[in-house]
């Protein structure tokens, strides 16, 4: 049943990329357990605006857990305490009356803070541009049923493609590694016949871009997958490593 909570918030405030930033404390009262975490922030921001204070900037859009915009690091966990959900789908019934909640932005040097809880994740787009696609121009396609794809491969490709690009994996990783994100895309295409022609080139170029962006190395702690709101599996990292090795060993690929 619906209840009301009184909460203490410690929120990271940072004016811009060059500002040092600090925590500020806020009290919010009468928060319904039916609210989403972001709706609780709406209430707080409404109050701040009314009091002539600067509202807290945070990324959000669909509020259905699919666009990947929201990105809060809550009590030391990306997207908060609940498994398998994004911040927008985290509801206040996961908290108790009187709780102190600490909210920070994603912390990783390839994701510089723009303001408060908003970070720049354009590095992910650049990794996709480096090779996260199948080179097929519009109009070149053959009939969609011309190549049957075993259901288990299609399902596994879909599971990889469910990645929402939110960056929680990077935020969760002590090395700020982007391996889970990159491997999900590599794996999706590696499992499909359409992805075969560029398979080796793709993995080489995406990994090269990932390194260039300054993401750290993978040390197999598995925090990324544990915190991933879409449950992207570590298997994809294993598949990417195999493909990367194969690509490095084959002589005609760079």
């Amino acid at each position, binding site marked *: 049943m619906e209840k009301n909570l009184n909460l203490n918030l410690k929120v990271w405030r940072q004016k811009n990329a060059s500002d040092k930033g600090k925590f500020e404390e806020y009290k919010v009262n009468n928060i319904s357990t039916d609210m989403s975490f972001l709706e609780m922030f709406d209430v707080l921001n409404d109050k701040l605006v009314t009091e002539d204070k600067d509202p807290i900037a945070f990324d959000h859009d669909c509020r259905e857990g699919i666009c990947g915009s929201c990105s809060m690091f809550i009590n030391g966990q990306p997207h908060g305490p609940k498994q398998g959900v994004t911040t927008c789908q985290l509801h206040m019934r996961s908290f108790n009356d009187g709780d102190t909640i600490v909210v920070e932005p994603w912390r990783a040097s390839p994701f510089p803070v723009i303001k408060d809880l908003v970070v720049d994740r354009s590095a992910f787009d650049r990794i996709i541009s480096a090779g996260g*696609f199948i080179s097929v121009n519009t109009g070149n396609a053959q009939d969609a049923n011309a190549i049957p794809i075993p259901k288990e491969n299609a399902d596994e490709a879909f599971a990889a493609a469910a990645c929402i690009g939110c960056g929680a994996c990077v935020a969760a990783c002590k090395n700020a590694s982007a391996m889970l994100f990159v491997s999900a895309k590599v794996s999706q295409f590696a499992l499909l016949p359409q992805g075969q022609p560029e398979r080796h080139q793709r993995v080489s170029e995406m990994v090269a871009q990932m390194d260039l962006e300054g993401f750290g190395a993978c040390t197999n702690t598995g925090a990324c997958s544990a915190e991933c709101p879409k449950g992207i599996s570590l298997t994809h990292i294993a598949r990417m490593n195999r493909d990367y090795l194969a690509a490095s060993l084959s002589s005609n690929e760079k």
Partner: protein
Amino acid sequence: MTSKLDSKIPEGNLEQKWTKYRSTVPLVNPANKRSLEIIIVGSGLAGASAAASLAELGYKVKVFCFQDSARRAHSIAAQGGINAAKNYQNDGDSTYRLFYDTIKGGDYRAREANVYRLAEVSANIIDQSVASGVPFAREYGGLLSNRSFGGTQVQRTFYAAGQTGQQLLLGAYSGLQRQVGTGNVKMYARHEMLEVVTIDGKCRGIIARDLTNGKLERHFGHAVLLCSGGYGNVFFLSTNAMGSNVTAAWKAHKKGAMFANPCFTQIHPTCIPVSGDHQSKLTLMSESLRNDGRIWVPAKKEDAQALREGRIMPNDIKEEDRDYYLERRYPAFGNLVPRDVASRAAKERCDAGYGVNKTGEAVFLDFAANTLRYGKIEANKKGIQNPSQEQIESLGKAVVKEKYGNLFDMYEQITGVNPYEQPMMIYPAVHYTMGGLWVDYNLMTNIPGLYALGEANFSDHGANRLGASALMQGLADGYFVIPYTIGAYLSKEIMTKAISTDHEAFVEAEKNVQDTINRLLSIKGSKTVDYYHKKLGLIIWNQCGMARNEAGLKQAISDVQALREEFWSNVKVPGDANSLNPELEKAGRVADFLELGELMCKDALERKESCGGHFREEYQTEEGEALRDDENYKYVAAWEYFAGNKWELHKEDLIYDNIKIAQRSYK
């Protein structure tokens, strides 16, 4: 037809119009394409697919989106599927049938030629998507799987669990990013378009604001494509993303582009009901659930009362005491009637006192019967003799989980109720807008060089869109229509050199934008932007929502006018214009919604008939079905803007040469 509206529909038989036109539309040679610049606003299905396709052809493309990445456009949230006339199921589907269903579903208020073209290219979209790695659902034989959607009797919907929009958008986005990588597309994320620039009557560019630092930028383009989505957020509560807005389309409208059928909005029947005043948005439960869910309310009012007070649980109500009202009223289509029909039927039951949650505004969507049916099939497949009820239930739940798992999880997260155990509670919510910028057959607005694609235009869905057709239209426009039709205009622009953004038209447009921003920041009133947005939403929902009438619409128009005036004198926008300022962004968008809201009511008032999503209480049959007036209203209402929120109506007659128009019946 007024002279200002030339739909440019090609001559010839319906079946040959597009093929013939496509083969005769003027071409631009590859060398010239390299010097032609195209601006695309919005990176959803329409924008991303258009950007990728046009860049592949060699045009110089700039893409703008307000989100931090093109991949986050709201197409990503589409759940259920995408229609295509592939006839893979051998159940009698064809291009004509998809065309017919779409026209009928739209209640005979869409253009025949546009819709036929849409149906024709639908099959190519599936081919293109599969080729670009979209992992659609497949059968064990490795071929593509299909499901049913409302308003049709064939299975033509392709899907990827309940995340079809995500998969299709990521497919188009990867094509777009590939072109970004080659340098053919320059991407401007976290940018918002705030003005259209016209020179000598032609569209020549835009003014955009870099949302991270507030800088205004001038961008020249030989053509501008608005792929900026619909205006459902005028209602405040809708299934749209928080940032979805009408601003790009509205700025174009105020520069002279006509806005067509603004009152045609879609209220989706299966959304999670409102839970309280804090609600910031509503969440859709995909129409695909109506494949396997049965919609009901108690047949007895006292049971409904007991449910509302929490004295009984839904499963306590016996089968014979349940009213499966869609199956009762519409036996031929049952739970798969089109969205407008299903929404009105839910409202009718709830208004009559049969609603099942504490607000009285919810009905049940129940999977129990089909869970058992699936369980029995699975038991058979596995050769289990005399399975127990529990075995059947658990096998059935596994099937339901595979089909709709993500939706069931989402429902549980939002409501705290497990839908595998209890029926879902649902209620209609604003979902899609059929109206939009008026475009001709080339998808060009009445401003030369300015185009509108996807939900931003009005052309294909008439007065009601069928499920799984929005994705189809967005990708049709971007992949397969605009790459051809843009040649009709750009072939005449090859001699136009890039115009300097120091041109006075750019200077003036930028000044307008700056003035509006300054004005918003200088009001320093006492109420937040959301306060006005919520008020506006309530006015439009109550008077221009599922049911409308003359008195209510007149009241709404004056209420919106008064609210707009108050907004401009008492809104409080904090911060400054030179940094990331989400409140300022919202204020600009709400200012535009406050003008659009009035036009929607005006359009609804003018259209004295009921059709599709537009239900005027004065015009209904004895059984409460929509009563169209083809004699007087078989037209597209295109509104021209004049300074000071004045509008003039232009009518484009709709001509049906290939379909016999009839009362739409799903009985």
